Structure formats: structure tokens, C-alpha cells
């Protein structure tokens, strides 16, 4: 079945229809219409799948896609335009350009935590670049996946953009086929499986994975401190209750400030979400029982539950876990070695804030490093001594909405990037095109060789035009060929 769908997509691509700028613009405009007209249904589906509040849904899903589409519409002609390239004088007369072309038929595998934006945002890139595509949303967000499968064919070109739903068996079938690109958002474990399957067909991949995103909190003045705490709290529990690749995973603070930090976080939590696990507001629930149990079992490890300084309550019926703060849980416990992906915030205390750099470097490279500080020296050290997909100073998550910044990981957090023009590029092949003329032949290119030609070539190909000129004018001694 998947084979047939893919064949249709490949045929559609071969027809050339998706290469036309008019097609791409039409599809982008249709996508904009889709998210505007179906906004209510989208909000409902997100509420059903994740208990996501409509404000969060707008901010992280609908609004994000709209912004992406508008940006693409604004820039697409510029992105599609060939880029002229300067050539060495040696090649005169000639001209060259780099022509972006679509890769062909691409596979997009999206995730469950931002089931709308992580599906549609890559779609924006694939469409802008002129490809045909198959989207497989995550089965762990069934209301959203079903909705996407329903509405996408209503607005977008059915022969060029298809949606297939299903679980890992369907994903497995799709991965056996030959794609011109695979764009995957998810865990490193599955990322490796995707890349292994892609290797069989030499398919290039972009892997948007996760990691433990640390937040470093330096000493700050009163008002800065207040803002920092809001942003940390908002960056932890705001995006899908911590079930986000970009969410703050753990916090690094100097020992002397920790009690103030904990108090402040408690206040933020109470103000933002409430303090009763049965009636928390404005926060997502845990996506399913598997993850609920996974998170709960993190508490079972020795020393972890004992380090809870706030929260810890769970409600299985509502699939809710309240925002929980841990103070110095054991560094070898699961909560400090695996990506949490939930509403648990461990705080690791340090004697000096600079120690945070070593702690970060002991772990795999994360998708983001957050640092709240006004100390320029510390900023520089963090920038140059740690490696991560991105670094944000004095805020969290917000780098995600800047279309000019490449969004992607490094090391275990993935490779490849998207957003803005990077999305267009990730689904394109940059084809070099060199135009030469027949006139002005360079005789020294051809045998039979002699020492003049050798010297000419030696100089010319090092772009040493001055000495070439001397040679041509007979003012330069010839190089003696070494004996073979």
C-alpha cells in the first residue's frame, strides 16, 4: 500500500508540477488557509491528545506554522533564485551559478508532543523547495494525526502531499522504501533506526532529536532574577509540561542561591498552574501510560524521591504529574542521565557557577544550552567550551521562533537544521552549473606535454597570474621536470 502511494508521489514529482513557483505558492497559501480555518478543530485535537491549552496551542503550534508559512511566502522567490558565483580568471570566458533544485520525494516523520507544528513546519520547507512528500504523524497523538489525515487532502494537492497514519509497523514499511530525503523528529534511539534504514538507499537524513537541555542560573539582581525565574519556569513546564526537546531539563545553580531559587520557582508554579494535581491549569498532561509510568519509575531510584523539595504528586486518572522540583538528586540516577521529557526539574547545586560547564560536557551534546547571566566572561566560556544545537542567553525556548536561526542539534541531539531558509535548503540540492564557451582554448591543457606547458599549468592552477604573464612573455625561466 505504502509502495503505491510512494509511486504516485514519484510520478507526480516527475511531472514537474511541484517545481513551478506558482504551485509552491498555491500550496503555501492553502496551508495558511488550513491552519486558519481549522484552528478550532486543531485546538480541540490538541486538547484531546495532550490537554494542551489553546494559548499554548496557538503559541507553539498554530501560530508557529502560520509564521513559518508567511515567512516562506515572503522569501520563496529569493530562495529559489540561482546564485551567481565568481570564477577564477583562468576559466574566462565562463559563468557559474548555484541552482537549488528539489530533492524529489521526501518522507517526514513527526513527533507527538507538538503534533501539528512538528508535522506542518517541515512540510513548509518541503513544499517551498518543490518536492512531493509523505507525512507520517505520530500515532501517540491520535486525534491530531486523524485530523491531519482528514484536512490536508482537503486543502493541499492530493497527488503531491500525502498523509499516512499508523504505528511503528507502518513506519517500518515506509523506511524500507527509497526516499530522496527523510526528515525525522523524535528520540535518538529511533533516529538511529531511521538512519540505518536510510543508509541502504543512500538517503540523506535530517534528525531532530533531543537531549538534556541544561539551564545555568548565575547570580542576578532583583528584577533580572524575577524575570529569569519566570522564563525558567515557563521554559520547563510551559512547552507540553516539559515533554519537549527544547524544554529546560535540569537547572544548575550556585549553592548560596538555591533556597531563593526554589522559593521563587514554587511561587511561579503556584501562580502559573496551581498547586493541586487534581486541578492544575494551563499545563499539559502526560501523553500516555507508558510515559507516565516511565516518569514515575524515575522516582523509584535510590535517593531520587528523597530529593523532592516540591511536588511529586501524580494522578493516573487524569494522566497528570504536578510540576516537581528536586534538589541534588544522585547524578548517576536516571533523572540525571536520561532526557526527562516530563515535569520534573532537578536542580544541581555548585560551589561556583563555572562548574556547570564540566557538568554539561560530561553529558551528550544537547539541543540547547540556556544560561541566565550578565557576566560576559561566563557567556564566552559557555559559548566556546560547551557544544549544543543552540545557545540562548537569558531566556528559554524562544530561539525556536527565530526564522533566521538554524534550528537543529549536534552529536546525540541530531544533525541537519531547519526553520526559515534552512528549511528550504534542507529539502534542496544545490546544483553547481558552470557555463563555458568554445572560444579561447587553453592549449596547455592538452598533451603532448612539454616543460612550457608544465610551467604554465603549475602557475595557472595556483592562480599566479603575474608569473603566467611573465612566462607567456618569455621572461620566466622554465621549471626543469624532475626525472621519473
Amino acid at each position, binding site marked *: 500500500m505504502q509502495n503505491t502511494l510512494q509511486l504516485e508521489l514519484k510520478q507526480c514529482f516527475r511531472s514537474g508540477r511541484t517545481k513551478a513557483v506558482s504551485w509552491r505558492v498555491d500550496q503555501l497559501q492553502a496551508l495558511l488557509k488550513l491552519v486558519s480555518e481549522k484552528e478550532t478543530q486543531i485546538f480541540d485535537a490538541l486538547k484531546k491528545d495532550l490537554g494542551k491549552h489553546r494559548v499554548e496551542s496557538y503559541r507553539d503550534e498554530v501560530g508557529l506554522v502560520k509564521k513559518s508559512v508567511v515567512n516562506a511566502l515572503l522569501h520563496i522567490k529569493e530562495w529559489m533564485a540561482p546564485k551567481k558565483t565568481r570564477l577564477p580568471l583562468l576559466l574566462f570566458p565562463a559563468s557559474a551559478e548555484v541552482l537549488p533544485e528539489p530533492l524529489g520525494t521526501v518522507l517526514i516523520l513527526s513527533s507527538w508532543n507538538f503534533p501539528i507544528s512538528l508535522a506542518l513546519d517541515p512540510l513548509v520547507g518541503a513544499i517551498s523547495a518543490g518536492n512531493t512528500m509523505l507525512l507520517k504523524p505520530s500515532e501517540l497523538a491520535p486525534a491530531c494525526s486523524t485530523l491531519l489525515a482528514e484536512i490536508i487532502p482537503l486543502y493541499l494537492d492530493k497527488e503531491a502531499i500525502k498523509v499516512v497514519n499508523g504505528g511503528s509497523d507502518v513506519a517500518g514499511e515506509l523506511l524500507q522504501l527509497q526516499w530522496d530525503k527523510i526528515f525525522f523528529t523524535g528520540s535518538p534511539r529511533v533516529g538511529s533506526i531511521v538512519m540505518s534504514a536510510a543508509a541502504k538507499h543512500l538517503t540523506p537524513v535530517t534528525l531532530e532529536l533531543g537531549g538534556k537541555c541544561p539551564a545555568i542560573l548565575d547570580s542576578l539582581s532583583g528584577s533580572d532574577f524575577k524575570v529569569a525565574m519566570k522564563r525558567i519556569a515557563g521554559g520547563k513546564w510551559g512547552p507540553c509540561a516539559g515533554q519537549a526537546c527544547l524544554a529546560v531539563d535540569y537547572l544548575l545553580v550556585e549553592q548560596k542561591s538555591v533556597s531563593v531559587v526554589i522559593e521563587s520557582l514554587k511561587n511561579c508554579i503556584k501562580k502559573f498552574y496551581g498547586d493541586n494535581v487534581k486541578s492544575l491549569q494551563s499545563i499539559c498532561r502526560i501523553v500516555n501510560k507508558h510515559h507516565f509510568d516511565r516518569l514515575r519509575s524515575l522516582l523509584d531510584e535510590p535517593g531520587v524521591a528523597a530529593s523532592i523539595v516540591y511536588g511529586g504528586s501524580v494522578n493516573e486518572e487524569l494522566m497528570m504529574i504536578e510540576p516537581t522540583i528536586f534538589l541534588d538528586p544522585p547524578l548517576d540516577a536516571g533523572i540525571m542521565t536520561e532526557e526527562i521529557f516530563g515535569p520534573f526539574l532537578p536542580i544541581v547545586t555548585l560551589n561556583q557557577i563555572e562548574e556547570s560547564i564540566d557538568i554539561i560536557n560530561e553529558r551528550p551534546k544537547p539541543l540547547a544550552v540556556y544560561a541566565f547571566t550578565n557576566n560576559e566572561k561566563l557567556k564566552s566560556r559557555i559559548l566556546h567550551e560547551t557544544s549544543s544545537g543552540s545557545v540562548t542567553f537569558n*531566556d528559554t525556548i524562544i530561539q525556536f521562533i527565530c526564522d533566521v536561526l538554524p534550528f537543529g542539534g549536534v552529536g546525540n541531539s541530531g544533525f541537519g537544521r531547519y526553520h526559515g531558509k534552512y528549511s528550504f535548503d534542507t529539502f534542496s540540492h544545490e*546544483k553547481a552549473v558552470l557555463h563555458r564557451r568554445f572560444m579561447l582554448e587553453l592549449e596547455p591543457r592538452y598533451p603532448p*606535454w612539454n616543460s612550457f606547458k608544465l610551467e604554465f599549468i603549475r602557475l595557472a592552477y595556483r592562480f599566479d597570474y603575474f608569473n603566467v604573464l611573465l612566462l607567456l612573455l618569455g621572461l620566466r625561466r622554465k621549471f626543469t621536470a624532475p626525472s621519473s
Partner: protein
Amino acid sequence: MVDAAVVVKQLRSTYASGITKDYDWRISQLKAFQKIVTSHEKEILYALRTDLSKPEHESQVQEIAQVLSACSLALKELKRWMKPQTVNPSIIAFPSSAKVIMEPLGVVLVISTWNFPFMLSLEPVIGAIAAGNVVVLKTSELAPATSALLAKLIPEYVDSSAVKVVQGSVPETTALLEQKWDKIFYTGSSRVGRIVSAAAAKHLTPVVLELGGKCPAVIDENINLTVAARRIISGKWGCNNGQACISPDYLITTKAYASKVAEAISTELDKLYGKDPLQSHELSRIINIHHFHRLLKLMDDDKVNQKIFRGGQHNESILKIAPTILLDVPQDALILEEEIFGPLLPIVMVDNIEDSIALISAKEKPLAAYLFTNNERMKDMFKRSISAGSICINDTIIHFLVPNLPFGGVGESGTGAYHGKLTFESFSHKKAVLERSFILDLDARYPPYAPWKTKFLKAVVQGHIASIARSFLCR
């Protein structure tokens, strides 16, 4: 056999020290590579002659000059390449400043190949060092003299705690591929490219695969056929005797024009290599007996053995095959299925020159596609319809020389690209950095959520200043 795990550990330790990130260190290493070439030119030429009977002129142009060019460009531009790129963050993130910084990936593996054993080893390594990484270079066992020379010279000049050369064959490569790398840069065949990619997948290692393919050359009528013939010869037999990923693999021309094309090439071949090319010192030999027999088999195929227009002579003792043209080769012949990688040039005939496009598109995407024509419409159609790593119109292989053009494949011919600044970028991570101010913190970002916050966010996303003001005032 060298212990791959130990080598990687040592390199990780060097990288962790931070020395390779330093601008001055990188410059010193680039200068060291430059010195290797300028001080040992004779030995390099000799090694290439030993491994491939490579004519000195090809070694100068296609190996030595390329490496020197890569060094001098990197030395000249490194400061600029290393500089962070400031970008304008969107109004939504106001007030903030943003930039993208180039960060080394860490410990990288460069696997090179035998046909341009010097250049295809050093150009990626130079880029990796310029980008601040530590490197293992695995050379090809099929070019033993060049491998041994590199293994001797590199530690003499370059910081050996940061660059290691590993010789050997499949077992050594396999051992290296089991390690965790921050990037793997592979040049070679599609078959092995798959193996490299699969190994990389286990560690989520990004790869650049510079592979091959059947690079077609389409010859239209009404052109300067003599110049075209010479340029085809230069790209085919003048480029390691056709054993190059970007050599024109096969020609396509019209039935009406085909014999003229064959004649023209043949005439020029006589002029450039003489009547007895097996005696010529200006043609590389076939790399080894295995490839020699492989090529003979392509010529012996029943479908083509009567189609030899010129050439076919061979001498096993010196591993030479004469430049051979096969005219009117059927499309299902073996020689049109696999990458030839040798001095055989099949000519395929079509009714109309435009038919060449469908013919090429039916095959896997090649590393390069060539077109000789003066017809602007044909040029445009070719450019837009043929997907290939690169396209060169009215010449062959010369795009390889241009540092600003991305050099790499697509589909079966590979993924990723390099040359010039792209080599540096290929071995770098573009890290996004956003710096925010504490002032102007938007309440609308935080719970408890309320309808005015939705309106406000919507207005911000849509960039409507009036709506932003309105929703803010009505909260």
C-alpha cells in the same frame, strides 16, 4: 594493526584540551600542510607515478595544485570563516541579538580513495583542521606508495596529537567505522558508501559521501567539434585515464552526428597521445589487475564487442588499455549499467538530442552531467531537467577547480558537498546563539492563560502593531 579505540581516545583528549580551536594553531597546521607539498613535490610526483603511472602534468594540476589552492584559500580566509555571522532576530524576540557561530564538530574520520590519493586525502583533512577538528585519515591500500608517503610526511610536519594517518585495508576501515565519530567524510563507491552510512547510523554520526556515478556527456550539433572533442578527451583520458568520479562516462549524440563525433575524438586522440597510446607516458595505467579484467569484460560483452570504433588494444603486463571508443552501444549493454571508471567511451545514439534528457533521467543521478551545445533552449532544458551533483556546459571536469562551487553528489552520487569555504562548513556545526534582554518581559507568554493573551500572541505573530497595542490595552 592499529587500535582504533586507542587512537580515537587520544584524539578526543587532544580535542578536549581546546588547542585545535585556537586560530594560530590552525594557521600553523595549514602552513605545515603547505610545506609538505612545496618541500616534497618530487616525492609526491614519484609516489603518484608508482601507484598509477600518473603523468606529471595530471599530478601537478589535479593533485598538487588543488591541495596548494585549498591551503592558500584557507590561510587567506580562515579569519573570515571563523567569524560569527550576525543575524537579525525577528520582532517577536525583541529585544535581542542573534548570531551563528562556527564550532568544530570534534573528532572526524576522513576515508580517502585511490584514484587521486594525494588530493582526496588532503583536501578534506585541510578543511577539517581549518574548522578546528582533530582528524584520522584512512588512506587507500590500492595506492600504497602515496599512502606510505602521507603516513611518513604528515607526522613530520603536522601536530601528530591532532592528525593521525591510518593505512591498511578493509579490516582497518571496519575497526575505524566501529568507533564513534563526530563526522565521517567518505570518498569512494556507492556500495561502500552504504556500509559507511550504516556504521555512522549506530552513533548518529553525520556523513559526507562523495560517490560516483555514470556522468553523461551530451553532444549537440552545430558546435566547435574539435574543441569539444579535446575537452572530452581532457576529462576522460586526461583525468587518470577515465578512472575518476567526474570523467565523462558515456556520450549521447544524435544518429546523424555520431560518426562525426567519434571521428573528431579519434583524430584528436591521435594528436594528443600518438598512434600507439599503449606506449604513451601521458596516460595513467589501470590501477590493478582486478579493474583491468573488469574493463576487458565490459568490452567483451556480446552486445558491444563488434561496436569498437577505435582502440581495444591492451597490455596486461603494464596494465594499460588504449583509449577506446564504442559507437552505437545498445542501452542494455553492461557497459551502460555500471560506472565504467576506465578508458572506454561508449557513444549512445538518439533520434533527437532532446531524447538524451529522458535517457539520463532514467538512470541514477550522476555526480556530474555535461552538455556541449550552442542552443540556449537546450542548455536551459538540460539545466532544469537533469538532476546531478553539478552541471558543466561546453566543458568537462573543470568545475572541480572552482573553489566557490559546491562539489558533491545527489541521490546515488552522494550527499553533502565541499571545496573552498564549504569544506570548512562541512566540518563545522553552525551554532545558533540568541541573546535576550531581561527588559520587556511579555506577560502574555505565561500562564494563567486568558483570552487577551491569545489575542495578543496572535497579533504579535501576525506583526500587526495596532492589534498588539489593542489587545495589550484591553487585558
